[in-house]
């Protein structure tokens, strides 16, 4: 489903962030990328979303080479990938309801579908009573749950979570990871990037370890070893 082939990313003039990275992620897998801050995890996800282009090598999403994808193809790929980020990346001038509804509006869904789906997702995520609040009026945990609701509402094929627990306390961290596991059980691919040792060791899923822009380990039922 997702394939990186000999990917190298160099930022001008000579900062190599990723070096000759190759791996493949199959549909329905739960893969964690681990590594120290600055190891290149976020760049890897940005390459997958087409926010960056590899200096050399190819990135494929469902056999589409992202490097060659035009604007329309990129938009379609991004709609198939639900993103959860450490800084939440919420639309701060929109309400909780509108943040989630925006994703469906982007896909051109009808209003009645939006009115049906959004409250449902917000109820599941525990934000049913905060629909008219703005992100700034939510706690950190609530903001991350809103980001998750937004990532899930259009049933994307892949969930990309970049340090989703970075700003959360242990209780909220556990909640988010449990939710990601549940999502994975529904058959969706989950890509988690983190440097949280406990999270990885409890998961017992595939772990790809990155150090200085290189893959140094790729193990099924992997552990956090750096």
């Amino acid at each position: 489903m997702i394939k990186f082939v000999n990917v190298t990313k160099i930022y001008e003039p000579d900062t190599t962030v990723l070096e000759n990275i190759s791996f493949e992620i199959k549909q329905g897998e739960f893969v964690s990328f681990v590594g120290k801050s600055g190891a290149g995890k976020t760049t890897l996800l940005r390459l997958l979303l087409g926010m960056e282009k590899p200096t050399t090598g190819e990135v494929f999403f469902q056999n589409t080479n992202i490097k060659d994808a035009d604007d329309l193809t990129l938009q379609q790929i991004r709609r198939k990938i639900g993103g959860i980020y450490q800084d939440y990346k919420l639309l701060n001038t929109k309400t909780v309801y509108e943040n989630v509804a925006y994703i469906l509006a982007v896909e051109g869904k009808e209003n009645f579908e939006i009115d049906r789906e959004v409250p449902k997702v917000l109820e599941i995520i525990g934000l049913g009573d905060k629909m008219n609040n703005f992100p700034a009026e939510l706690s950190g945990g609530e903001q991350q749950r809103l980001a998750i609701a937004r990532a899930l509402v259009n049933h994307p094929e892949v969930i990309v979570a970049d340090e989703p627990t970075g700003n959360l306390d242990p209780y909220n961290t556990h909640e988010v990871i449990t939710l990601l596991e549940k999502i994975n059980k529904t058959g969706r691919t989950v890509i988690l990037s983190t440097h949280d040792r406990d999270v990885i060791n409890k998961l017992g899923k595939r772990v790809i370890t990155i150090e200085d822009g290189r893959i140094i380990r790729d193990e099924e039922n992997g552990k956090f070893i750096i």
Partner: protein
Amino acid sequence: MSNFSRVLNFALTDFARNKGVSIATIFVLVVTISLVSGLFFFRGFTNYLIFGLQDKMDITAYFKDEVTEEEILAVKDEITGLSADIKDVQYISKEKALEDFEEKHKDNDVYTKALQEVGANPFLPSLSIKTSGDPEQYEEISNILQSGQYSQLIDSVDFTQKKDTIEKVYEITKNVNLFGYILSAILIIIAVLVVYNTTKLAVDTSKDEIGTMKLVGASNWFIRGPFVVQGAIFGIIAFVICIILSTATVYLLSPKLGLIMPGFSLADYFISNLWVVILIQLGFGAGLGMLTSYFVVKKYLKN
């Protein structure tokens, strides 16, 4: 719900939520549009002054006493067709010249007595010629009239006496025009920069959101649309305020300006140029608002 009505809905919601930014942007637009509108009225005012001055400038070709009216009118027709710059050629007969003189000096005994002493009508029939004001044109016409086929009919042309005045008036009108153009160019550049930067400030507050919208797969049009529509809303509101302000200003100033400048009616100028005023105000408000929003968001979409 179509995408367009969604975009419109987003724009209206953002407009209502960001009241501070919206009011500030509209205020700047009102100031800018008023500035440009003021410039338009200023140009109308200076053009009136220039035309007034140019209209008073002419050269007169005096014909010999024995030349018949038919011959003079034939010359008039020929001169009128000489150049597109010749604005007006007026025939003044001997009788009309005397009549005008008497009317002009009816309260002055010296002139009346002098005329009586002369006994007969001392005036010559003439053609009064007006051009667009360029001294060179006057000189050229004067030369044509005093040489070749016309020289036998013409007694004299008063270009030499009027040359200095014509040159001074031409210089003044040229400088007023040049000053008007330079002032217009500077103010329009300032207006465009002010509107651009105000729009940029309004869009800047949503810079991060634009990045997020891209990340979730929104099309460029879906992201840009609400900002462009908001630019139009700002512009239309600013236009409405400005047209009301302009009408009120014209209503209040027109009678006073009429006292300073007899013959110039600001109200008439405003009414006869209403469509131009509307076009300028809408163009600067909505047009520029939309265009600058488009380009500012485009810049962020590239990042």
